């Protein structure tokens, strides 16, 4: 930054992380088999959007005892904790004393389906893990992506000086392409959707909400 001296700081930055989980090649086929067999009315969420091309389960996935689910749970919570710790001023010891609570559901989007825009209450963090991704086809841009919405309204006044702002100052949606074995972690209040899927095969996601408690804290709101 010149001339003169000074600082250029992203003062209202939004954390977003994309991580690859280890061992996904072995884990994902087991998860796919298990989850595909339970994408049915018995396990469907009553509150999340559903359609013939979109299935969303209840948020008790991490209560399932099956080893693939518990293995994923452990890895996802570790990944979330790593990201959250990186965003905070806690010492390693202080952070290790926090309690962690989570709810998770799985979402299956079939070809021609989409997951409508949503955000989540009662938890500050959301993690979207990709178990399987479809083989995309067609010329459609933004085919089957996770799209996190820009929500700042200051773009109402736009001119030549602010319409091409670079990261981290750009005012635009953020795109993440679900890739098996990868997880996106971001604040749960952010509106996001999975765009229309054009291709073959299903997009299978595990979506986790996570929150933390101070030592001794018990007064958590209900999920």
């Amino acid at each position, binding site marked *: 930054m010149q001339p003169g001296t000074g600082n250029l700081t992203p003062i209202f930055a939004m954390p977003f992380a994309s991580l690859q989980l280890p061992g996904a090649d072995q884990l994902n086929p087991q998860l796919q088999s298990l989850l595909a067999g339970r994408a049915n009315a018995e396990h469907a969420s009553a509150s999340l*959007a559903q359609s013939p091309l979109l299935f969303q389960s209840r948020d008790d996935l991490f209560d399932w005892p099956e080893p693939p689910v518990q293995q994923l749970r452990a890895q996802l919570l570790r990944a979330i904790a790593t990201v959250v710790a990186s965003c905070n001023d806690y010492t390693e010891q202080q952070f290790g004393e926090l309690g962690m609570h989570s709810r998770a559901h799985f979402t299956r989007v079939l070809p021609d389906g989409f997951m409508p*825009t949503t955000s989540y209450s*009662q938890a500050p963090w959301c993690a979207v893990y990709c178990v399987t991704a479809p083989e995309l086809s067609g010329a459609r841009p933004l085919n089957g992506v996770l799209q996190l919405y820009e929500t700042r*309204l200051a*773009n*109402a006044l*736009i001119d030549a000086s602010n319409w091409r702002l670079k990261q981290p100052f750009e005012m635009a949606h953020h795109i993440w392409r679900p890739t098996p074995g990868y997880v996106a972690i971001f604040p749960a*209040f952010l*509106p996001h959707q999975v765009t229309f899927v054009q291709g073959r095969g299903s997009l299978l996601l595990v979506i986790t909400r996570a929150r933390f408690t101070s030592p001794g804290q018990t007064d958590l709101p209900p999920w």
Partner: protein
Amino acid sequence: MVAPTLVITPAFAVPIGETRLADCERLNKELESLFLARENDEFRNPTPSHLPQQELFESRFNLFSWPEACVRELRTVMLNTVAQVVRHVSSTPPEQLAALTIHNHTWFHITRYGGSFVSHNHPLASWSAVYCVRAGEPVADQPLSGLLRFFDPRTGANAYRDAANADLESTYAVGVRNFRLTAGQIIVFPSYVYHEVAPFYGADTRITVATNCWFR
């Protein structure tokens, strides 16, 4: 002891105007015929602000400069409706509002199966409006098909929910507002509000006209 008067104010309200043009069948038929005939590269928006989709045709933004009678008729209806909404919600004296000139960018969309429009708003305009020429067929098992969805600008206001704020009445409710457009319907809203069109699953076409207005 006199009970204190309690006043509750919708302090951060977003005005969304809604009306429906009566006897719009003839007009819509003429507009549809005209738009379908001009669904080609000559009339396509050459500089779309969002990634274009094959399933959605967007015209140039000069629609209201077309001389065709049906377009002139729609121009009058839509801009008058915008002006009417402004008069309702503005405290500027009517005679001052009447002296303003409405400028606009106006275009049409033709959406086919799978077409959608990502969340967006309209910089450099104060009021926007959508007119529905043809709603497209409803699809029973896709209730979101083709919905016009407005996003609550109070992002994060629903981050904490309990029994006392989960079911606020419409004026105060937090969340997405969905509109299933019907032919002849006009929706007017502040241009800063983010909105999207959910994927359309009809086998026919969904046709709308949109305008962004600014006043001088």
